[in-house]
């Protein structure tokens, strides 16, 4: 355990690993004898009490938006849009969208309710790590995810 002379300047530092994948915001907080201690530029003036300091790194996250875009013909089908296995927009049609951590979605075009064909719902899985820099990010934020149904498939019955 490190010790420091009372009244002296103590420098606190951290160096992130060169092979780290995530991006982080960092903060430093210290207590002395259980009370908050002033930290200035990662340095403290040693008080006459035991000091505990903590560097906290918080992973930077960003939202991933998935948009359903049906191209080519008038498909009444409904789709569940998922991010990392979590449904962000259930039963949406053309133009439907969902955002991770956000329940907002919109319906228009052929997204006409359930239409009695829930078994027809397809799931669009997006493999994406929500941490910035947390590869792999198969579908980056703000990209459009498009599924083009095969024109030769059988009609869907309700």
């Amino acid at each position, binding site marked *: 355990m*490190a010790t420091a002379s009372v009244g002296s300047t*103590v420098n606190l*530092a951290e160096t992130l690993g060169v092979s*780290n994948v995530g991006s*982080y915001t960092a903060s430093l907080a210290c207590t002395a004898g259980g009370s908050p201690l002033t930290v200035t530029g990662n340095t403290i003036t040693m008080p006459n009490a*035991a000091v*505990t300091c*903590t560097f906290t790194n918080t992973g930077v*996250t960003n939202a991933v938006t998935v948009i359903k875009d049906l191209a080519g013909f008038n498909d009444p089908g409904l789709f569940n849009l998922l991010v990392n296995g979590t449904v962000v927009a259930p039963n949406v049609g053309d133009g439907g969208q969902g955002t991770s951590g956000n329940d907002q979605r919109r319906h228009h075009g052929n997204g006409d309710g359930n239409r009695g064909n829930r078994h027809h719902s397809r799931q669009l899985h997006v493999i994406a790590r929500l941490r910035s820099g*947390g590869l792999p990010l198969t579908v980056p934020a703000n990209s459009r995810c498009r599924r083009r149904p095969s024109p030769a498939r059988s009609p869907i019955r309700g």
Partner: protein
Amino acid sequence: MPAAGVTCTFTNTRLTNSVTLTKSWVSAVPGDTTALVISGDQVTNAAGPGH
């Protein structure tokens, strides 16, 4: 006073206290690391970089 030269010394020992540096991760990517360092002219027994 003895029949000899006398030398007296006041000794002031500077107070010290412990400094502990810890790490907290929030929403971290598994496997990511960091090295922690405590330094200063009046710091002793600072352990090597920890993760």
